[in-house]
C-alpha cells in the first residue's frame, strides 16, 4: 500500500482540523476509551435534543494517531441528528466506508475507537445494546 493511499487528503484534513472537537459541560451522555495497544484516547460527549433521543450535539477530545482522530471527527459529523438507538445499531462498516482507506486489523482498532466509545456513552445513558460484534469495545473501562 502506498502511503498516500492511507493518508489521503480528507484524513489529514480531519486530523488537522477536527470537527466537533471540544467538551460539552454537563453532557447527557459521555464516555472515555483507550486503545490498550497504542494508548490512543478518546472522550466523547453527547447532548440530546428535546425528544431526549436524537443526538443534537456531539463533541470529542482525544489524542492519538491520524486514523483514530480523523475517524472520530468524521463520526461526529455522521451521527449528529440521528437517534441513539440508530447509532447503537450502526454497523462499523458505515464508518469504515466513510474513512475509506484499507486498514490492517491493528489500524482497524484505531479507526473504530471513537465509535466504540460513543456506543458505550449511549449504552450508559440509554441502555442501548453493545453488540458482540464490537469485539473488545464492550469492555472499555470507563474512568
Amino acid at each position: 500500500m502506498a502511503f498516500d493511499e492511507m493518508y489521503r487528503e480528507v484524513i489529514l484534513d480531519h486530523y488537522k482540523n477536527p470537527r466537533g472537537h471540544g467538551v460539552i459541560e454537563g453532557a447527557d451522555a459521555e464516555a472515555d476509551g483507550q486503545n490498550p495497544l497504542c494508548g490512543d484516547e478518546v472522550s466523547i460527549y453527547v447532548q440530546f435534543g428535546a425528544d431526549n433521543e436524537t443526538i443534537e450535539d456531539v463533541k470529542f477530545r482525544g489524542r492519538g494517531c491520524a486514523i483514530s482522530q480523523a475517524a472520530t471527527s468524521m463520526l461526529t459529523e455522521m451521527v449528529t441528528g440521528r437517534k441513539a438507538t440508530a447509532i447503537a445499531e450502526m454497523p462499523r462498516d458505515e464508518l469504515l466506508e466513510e474513512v475509506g482507506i484499507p486498514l490492517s486489523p491493528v489500524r482497524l482498532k484505531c479507526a473504530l475507537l471513537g465509535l466504540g466509545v460513543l456506543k458505550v456513552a449511549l449504552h450508559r445513558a440509554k441502555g442501548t445494546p453493545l453488540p458482540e460484534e464490537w469485539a473488545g469495545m464492550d469492555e472499555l473501562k470507563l474512568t
Partner: protein
Amino acid sequence: MAVTSARQLDAAALRAQFPIFEQAGGARRLAYLDSSNSSQKPRAVLDAMQTFYETSYANVHRGVYELADRAAAAFEDSREKVRAFVNAGSQREIIYTRNATEALNLVAYAWGLENLGPGDVALVTELEHHSNFVPWQLIAERTGATFAAIPIEGGNHELDLSKLDEIAKRGQIKVLAVGLVNNSLGVVNPVSELAAWAHEQGAICVVDACQAAPHRPIDVQTLGADFVAFTGHKMLGPTGIGVLWGRQELLQSMQPFNVGGGQIRHVSLEKTTWNDLPHKFEAGTPPIVEAIGLGAAIDYLNEVGLESIEDHEVEITEYALGRLGEIFGLTIFGPPLERRGGIISFDLDGVHPHDVAQILGNEGVAVRAGHHCTQPLMKRLGVAATTRASFYLYTLPEEIDRLVDGLHRAKKVFA
C-alpha cells in the same frame, strides 16, 4: 464395533506423512505406542511452522508493518481453528497456555483463589492426572476448602457414582475437576452427567480433555462443562502450547492469572486494568508459532476426520485387547471397549513395568511404564506402576503384534 458413516482411514498411508517413521534407525522400524504421552507430528504441521518463521515471523498485536500484520492475522486464524474444533461460541473463549497443566492451574488460581473457602469442597476424581488433581489440592489448602476425590469401583476401575450423594454431604461442592478420558487406563468418564450433577450442587465443572481432544469430536456447547483444557503436543501439534476454553461470563468475572505484557489495558502505579478476552489471560508474548502449528494440526485432524480417527482407534484397541488377552499372566486394567479410549494399561506377572518397557524398547516398541502421573489411581490399583500402550491414527495392527511378541520375550527373560 459401532457402525458409523465415517470413512475408514488408511493408517499406513497417513503414516507416510510423519517424518519420524521414515528413519532407517537400524534394522527395526519404530512401533510407537506412546501417543497418549505425546503424539508424533505430520510434515504439514512442521512445514507450517517452518514456513511461518521463514516468511511471516513477527510479534503479534503490536506492529503496524506488514510482517506484524501477517503474523497477527495467522495467529488469530489459528485461534479461530481451535474455536471451531471444539465448537466454542466465541474466539474470546479460547485461551492459549503453555500446556494443559498451565490451563488447569490457571482455573485453579484465577477462579479458585477467589471462590473457594472453608466449608467449600474442591472435588476431583481418583482417575485424574496429577495436573487436574494437585492444583485443586493446593488451592484448597491455600483457601481452607476441603479437598476430596470421587473414588473408583474395583471391577472396571470406573468412577463410583454411587458415592456422589455421600460426598455432597461433606460441604458445599464448588468445583468438580474431571477428565474426559483417563490417561493411564483409558476410562471414559460420563462427563455430561457429572457436569449436570456439579451444576445442581452449585459447582463449576472443569474438564481435562487432553486424552479426548486428539481422538474424538468435542463440542463444548453440548458437553455441559464450564472449562475444558487440552494440550497441543498430544494432538499432532507442537510442544509449548495448550488450550483453555472457558465460558465467557466466567472468564470475564475472573481475576487474571499471570500478568504483564499484552494482557493489560492500562497500568499506573495506583491501578492496573486488564485487556479484553482472551488477552486478559495471555500474559507476555504468546506461543505464536506454536499456535500456527496447532492450527495446522487441527486442519490435518479435520481432513482425516475425528470420527474416522475414533473408529480406527476402536478397531486397533479391540484387536489389541484380544491379542493381549491371549498372554498368560497378563492383567488388563480398566473398562470394556465401549467405555475405553485407545489406551491399554496392563500388568505382566513377575516382570516390573519398567523392565517390560525396557525389553520392548530394546525391540523398537515404544510404550510407557510408570504411574502416568496418576499416583492416586495406582495406589487404588495396588500397583506402583503399569505398562501402557496407546494408539493413534497412525497405529498399525502389526505394531500390536510386535508388542505381543515383545511381551512373550519379556516373560522368557524373567522366567
